[in-house]
Structure formats: structure tokens, C-alpha cells
């Protein structure tokens, strides 16, 4: 910057006002502060406040009480909901992470070797990622359906194999929702892993080669350690993403059979907007927030420190 030069052709009043105004960071950041303040910060504070009330969605009367918190947390359904959430989130994160690395590694290898179809595979995975959640649920409903048009069961029938109750057996339905979510979310991990793999210094592999490391040794002792930071950041992002997902489940199973696939986000949605229980929903929203942030901090604590890098 050259303040001297600016002083030299000093302009009329309005321009110097403009300069002073534009030279401070605050006016530039103001729009973000206002939008985040009104639409994020304020509602979040209000959710905390509402969880200490007995507010409902209809009617304005509310008293401050701890009753909603004890009610929501002692609800007999909560353990089932948390279990369903654990399977859905844990399975999605593990599945998307492993598949994301695998696809990225194979795509990079394929590009290097000039194999046919690497670009097609990468693009197809990304297309699945762009599909809206509601549509994703509908698509997988058609695949898992036990009606005659259901794709998977009709394939099993063609092969004279017993059909599977993909969506109506409480023991199987959670895995079905998991598969559909892995389908939708893997591309994101793939992009992150692809970028991270590309930024690994090739000389590390040359050194490993000289030392006589096999391909799998190179993967476990060079690739994985180099990917550590990217994997953890990716896990934070997909964990939060998955904890918050519910539109894909609404259309696929609606939370059923029973409550087998009712994850916490869907439960909150139902409590607030079907039971009109605002305070109970707020308590569970806070719980959801704590789960997301808690997991994010756990992952973050495994991140390599700056000086290690």
C-alpha cells in the first residue's frame, strides 16, 4: 500500500469520506454480521431460551420451567432415537470416508495409467451428490420397495433368491437408509480426498519405492499418514452434515418401521412441527448441536498441531 501516493492527488470531500469509510474493515463485513446475527445467532440464542420454557408452536403463553428439559431427556423414546442416529451417522461417516478414499485412490491411479472410465466414474459419483435429498429418498424408495416395481427385490426374484424386507423389517431398514445416504454423500469425501492425495509430495513415494515398499505398504505408511489432517476435517464436515440430514429419510422410510430409522433430526422435526411442542423440540435441538460440536471437537483434537506439520 502507498498512503503517500493517495495523499498526493487528494480528492474533494466526498471521495475522502468514501476512502475513510471503505478503508476500515467493518463496513465490508457488516452485511455478513447482520445476516448471521439475525438468522443464526439470534435464533440459536432463542433456542437455548425456549428450552427453558414450556412454549408450544401455537399460542404465545409461556412460563420458564425446567420441565421441558427433564421431559425431553427422560422420554422413553430417546434411547431408540439416539441408537438410530448413532447407526446412521456412524455408518455414514465410516462408509463415506472409506469409499471416498477408495474411489479417489483408484481415480488418481486410473488417471495416471490412462484407464478408460475414470472421468465417467468421478462424474457419476458427483451427480449423485447433487440430487436433492427428497428426490434421493424417492429414488431409493423405488429401489428398496417391496412392491412389484422394487428394483432390488425384482432382481433377487429373477435370480430365484429370497426377497428382502428392505424397508419394513426394523432390523434391516436402518442399513437401507445408510446405503442410500452413503450413495448421496460419498462424492463429497471423494473430492476432499482427491485434492488431498494430489497434494502429497511425489518424492515420498519415490523414497518408499527405493526402500522397496510394496503398494500396500506405501498406502499405509505414506498415503494414510499424509491424509490424516484431510481425513479428520472431512469427518467433521460429514458428521455434521449427517447429523442434520432428515429429508432423505422422510421420503424413504418416514422414520419407520416403528421408530427404527427415526434419527434425532427427524424426531426434532416431528416433535416441533407435528406435535407443536416447541420447548421439547428446542431441548432436542440443543442436544443435536451438542452432539455435532462434541464430535467435531473430538476429531479436531486428533488434528496434527501446527508445529508438527
Amino acid at each position, binding site marked *: 500500500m502507498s498512503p503517500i501516493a493517495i495523499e498526493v492527488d487528494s480528492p474533494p470531500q466526498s471521495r475522502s469520506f468514501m476512502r475513510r469509510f471503505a478503508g476500515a474493515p467493518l463496513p465490508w463485513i457488516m452485511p455478513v454480521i447482520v445476516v*448471521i446475527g439475525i438468522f443464526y445467532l439470534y*435464533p440459536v440464542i432463542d433456542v437455548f431460551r425456549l428450552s427453558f420454557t414450556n412454549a408450544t408452536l401455537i399460542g404465545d403463553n409461556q412460563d420458564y420451567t425446567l420441565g421441558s428439559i427433564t421431559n425431553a431427556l427422560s422420554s422413553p423414546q430417546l434411547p431408540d432415537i439416539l441408537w438410530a442416529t448413532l447407526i446412521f451417522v456412524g455408518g455414514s461417516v465410516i462408509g463415506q470416508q472409506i469409499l471416498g478414499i477408495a474411489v479417489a485412490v483408484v481415480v488418481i491411479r486410473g488417471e495416471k495409467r490412462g484407464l478408460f*472410465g475414470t472421468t465417467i*466414474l468421478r462424474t457419476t459419483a458427483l*451427480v449423485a451428490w447433487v440430487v436433492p435429498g427428497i428426490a434421493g429418498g*424417492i429414488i431409493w424408495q423405488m429401489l428398496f420397495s417391496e*412392491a412389484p416395481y422394487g428394483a432390488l427385490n425384482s432382481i433377487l426374484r429373477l435370480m430365484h433368491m429370497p426377497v428382502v424386507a428392505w424397508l419394513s423389517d426394523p432390523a434391516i431398514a436402518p442399513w437401507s437408509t445408510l446405503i442410500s445416504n452413503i450413495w448421496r454423500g460419498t462424492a463429497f469425501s471423494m473430492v476432499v480426498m482427491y485434492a488431498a492425495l494430489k497434494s502429497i509430495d511425489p518424492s515420498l513415494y519415490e523414497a518408499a519405492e527405493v526402500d522397496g515398499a510394496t503398494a500396500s505398504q506405501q498406502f499405509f505408511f505414506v498415503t494414510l499418514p499424509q491424509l490424516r489432517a484431510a481425513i479428520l476435517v472431512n469427518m467433521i464436515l460429514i458428521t455434521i452434515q449427517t447429523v442434520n440430514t432428515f429429508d432423505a429419510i422422510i*421420503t424413504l422410510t418416514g422414520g419407520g418401521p416403528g421408530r427404527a430409522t427415526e434419527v434425532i433430526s427427524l424426531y426434532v422435526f416431528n416433535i416441533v412441527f407435528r406435535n407443536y411442542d416447541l420447548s421439547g423440540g428446542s431441548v432436542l435441538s440443543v442436544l443435536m448441536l451438542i452432539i455435532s460440536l462434541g464430535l467435531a471437537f473430538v476429531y479436531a483434537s486428533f488434528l496434527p498441531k501446527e508445529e508438527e506439520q
Partner: protein
Amino acid sequence: MSGRTGTRLGDAMSYLFMLIMFVFFAGPLTYLLSMAMRDKREIYRGAARYIPNNPTIDNFITVLNNSYFPIYLWNGLKLAALSGLGVLIVALPAAYAFSRFQFRGKGLSMMGLLLFQMISPLVIMVPLYRYMNRLGLLDTHFAVVMVYIALGVPLATWLLKSTVDGIPRSLDEAAMIDGCNRFSVFWRIVLPLSAPGIASVFIITVIAGWSQFLVPFLLLTKNDLMPIGVGIFNFRGMQTDSSIQLLAAACLIAVVPAIVAFLSLQRLILGAMTSGAVKG
């Protein structure tokens, strides 16, 4: 010698894995297409009629004629595009400031932005619904667009900051020596040079808006205000097992615009994601 067979085996394994993955990712979408092009009798043949004997586009015509679908599509497009514009207007100046100014709490506020990104829209929708209701803003596209903008701003600011970071500061300085103030540097130099990043952030926001379900589902009640996401959800509720081909056609109509938008700017979007979100 063993090295070469090893490479060839590796190639074979790669092809096998790529084939399985391709079936996994493309299979569901092609089945949707197959269902959407069947007549009533063929839907009961399941996967046995993967390629329908009598492919038809009647289902698409029925959906586009008989329902609110054109309105849903228009609403979806309008809300998504306006939110894309809004996100740029809000996030661009901030991205410039985060890139070019040094000030106290800069790192902290950038991290804070990411924290907001972690909050589920569900959490903020509870109070927002109440206040939109009090303000009389329920059933307005204005309220929906504003919430979309808020949801998109944190990520957009990060992505745009890394775009601006990529523009050499020496250009700013040269322009300032020539008498430009901060605003005209931003307007004449930074914005044009950020065009690729701006385009990708715009399209990412538009696709996210197109996929939105929760916000319009809660803030809108009138059918003629609904965007496509809520539209197909409601449409699904009206279908039975015997009209599943219509649902498939409707679903495909909702999916295709997002895919086309993404594919046409794939390179830009991936570039922005890998340089900004990941390494940022």
C-alpha cells in the same frame, strides 16, 4: 517381469472396482429414468424391464400438464437464483475484507463463521418460524430467500476469500497508486478477476437452494408458492403404487436441472471446493 504383471493385475482390479462403483452410483439414477419412461403395465415388471418395451414420455407430459409442476419449477428457480445473488452481495465484501485487511479478531471471526455452518437449519427454523409468523412474513418468498442467504453465507465467504487471496495484492496497490480507493479497487479489479470463483459460489448456492426442503416447507403454506423440493414431496403424498411412474417422472424433472447446472460448471465448482473449503 513381476512388476509388469503386478501393474496389469492392478489395472484389472481398478477396472473391477470402477465398474462396481459405477453401477452403485449410476444404477439408481438409470432406474429412475427407466421407471419414468414406462407405461402402467410395465411398472410391475420391476428390474425385468430395465429397458422398457414401450418407452413413453407420457408421464412427463402428464406431470407437467396436470399439476402445479411448472409453478413449482419456476418457484424453485426463482428462490434458488435470488438466494445465489443475495449470497454474493453479502459475502463478497466480507471476503474482500477478510483477504485484504488486517484486524483484531479476524481469525476468530473466520472460525466463528464455520461454526455457524455447523448448525442445522432445523435448529434455527424453530425460532425463525415464530418470528416470521409475528412479522407477517410467512408465505412470502422474501422470508425464504433471506433464510437461504443466511444458510449459504458462511461457506460462500470462505470460498470467496480464497478466491480473492489468489489475486496478487500488487494489483490492488498499483490501482491505489493510480488513485483508486478501496471501493473502486474492489469493483474494478477484484470483482472481475474473481469471476470464476464468483460463478462457482453462485452455482453452489443455487444448487443448494434448489435442494432445499425444510425452509420452504415450514415457511410456506400456499401451494402456488412452493418450490420444487416441497412440490415433489407433496406430489409423492398423492401417488399410489399404481402411479409410481408419474412420481418417477416428477422426480426426474426435479433432479435434472441441478445435474445440468452442476455438470456445465463442474470444473469451476471442484476448483473452488478443493482450493477453498478443503485447504482453507
